[in-house]
């Protein structure tokens, strides 16, 4: 434990490279997941259409999808023989981001959907009768449920930064390049580098705690 704390305090290069990779991959992933998930969540919640229930069921199923399955699907697409193999992305941060977006997108969409369902049903008709376009009314709806949307994005970030399956399968745990906190903990601990794994574990817990504090405040805040 003492060695682990020492690694953190003297800003060990390998520890902080893994932390940086985790934060940047999770950051980009959650940005794309939000761009995808928030409009989907808003649209599904605010519109009545045939197949709405099925869509929500699919979103719920995707939210519960095991990370290794997502990793496997994207791996099969990005591998040399895969449909998108010519992109040459496998074992890169971009590949990791693609997988993480598929992981976080449904989470962001579902949480946004829940936030809209709990919101006042008069928001959209009020905006429409005041002359807003359909898109403008949806933007206004997003503004009114912004705290719920922020909570959705934070939940997505929390999921991405703490998962190991996608990062390992699509990133390959390449030191200084695709090695994240979680993949490093898994691999280094198995090699006997317990202190290194523990140091990253402490940082990961700190990050997870911060995310949960943010999540709590986002959910508690009301306009």
């Amino acid at each position, binding site marked *: 434990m003492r060695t682990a704390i020492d690694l953190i305090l003297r800003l060990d290069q390998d520890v902080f490279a893994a932390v940086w990779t985790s934060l940047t991959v999770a950051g980009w992933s959650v940005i794309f997941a939000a761009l995808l998930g928030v409009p989907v969540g808003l649209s599904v919640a605010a519109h009545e259409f045939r197949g709405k229930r099925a869509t929500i069921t699919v979103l719920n199923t995707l939210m519960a999808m095991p990370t290794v399955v997502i990793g496997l699907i994207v791996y099969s697409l990005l591998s040399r023989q895969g449909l998108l193999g010519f992109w040459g992305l496998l074992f890169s941060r971009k590949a990791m981001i693609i997988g993480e977006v598929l992981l976080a997108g449904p989470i962001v969409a579902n949480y946004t959907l829940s936030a809209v369902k709990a919101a006042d049903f*008069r928001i959209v008709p009020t*905006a429409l*009768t005041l*002359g*807003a*376009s359909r898109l403008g009314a949806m933007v206004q709806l997003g503004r009114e449920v912004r705290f719920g949307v922020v909570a959705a994005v934070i939940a997505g970030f929390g999921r991405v930064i703490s998962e190991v399956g996608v990062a390992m399968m699509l990133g390959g745990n390449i030191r200084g390049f695709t090695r994240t906190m979680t993949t490093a903990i898994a691999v280094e601990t198995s090699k006997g580098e317990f202190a290194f794994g523990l140091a990253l574990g402490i940082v990961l817990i700190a990050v997870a705690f911060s995310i949960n504090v943010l999540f709590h405040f986002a959910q508690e805040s009301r306009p």
Partner: protein
Amino acid sequence: MISLLRLAGVEKRYGERVALQLDELAIFPDRLYALTGPNGSGKSTLLNLLALLLRPERGRVWFGEEEVAWRPRQLQAMRRKVTLMHQAPYLFSGSVAGNVGFGLRTRHGAADEMQAVIEQALGTVGLAGFADRNVRQLSGGEARRVALARALVLEPLVLLLDEPLANLDEESTGIIERLITGLPAQGTTVVMSTHDMEQAERMATDVIRLNDGRVSPAMRRDLGRERSSDKVEICPPTKKHEKSSSTALAPSGLSG
């Protein structure tokens, strides 16, 4: 005479229940219609239909001479001339000024001169100096007056009001009632729902009574005259009516 809004053979259902069934109904310019009837008689449904927020399962709707085709662009252009104030109006989070300026921003974007217009509208409803207040700090009566200012500032051709005077204190009732009755003279046609027949008789030029989603022929009144025909034909047009309706009812794609 051109009607502002006309419904023909309209039927609106919620599941199996028929909420509204109208053979024909026309709303003419510069009038104040009181829509009365018991709970569940279809008043709110009719107002939402007239606001083009609900699409009927059957029937045709005209805005001026243009038939509503329920296309998004056409709807948006038409809705910019018809504004509905709900029974319990929703105020967007933020300031009073942000709410009153909402419709103006959808039409013109943010503009410096908007502030003066907002202040003036708030003064009209007796809320001068309320611009910077957070809407969550308002009383029920104040919130309803803000919603009315938000609608009035748009100078709609038709203002639809769902129970605008229900559960209000005396002060708010007086202010809102005075404002509403003055609107037809300023070129805004009003259709307001109310449970209070005395209030309807006092304020309205025309009374339409709904029962089980249908207009009760015996209760259709035009300036005190009983009507028994199945069509709501309102008084003959005056010069002012003809002028205001013909200028305001340009095709939706070209104005608004």
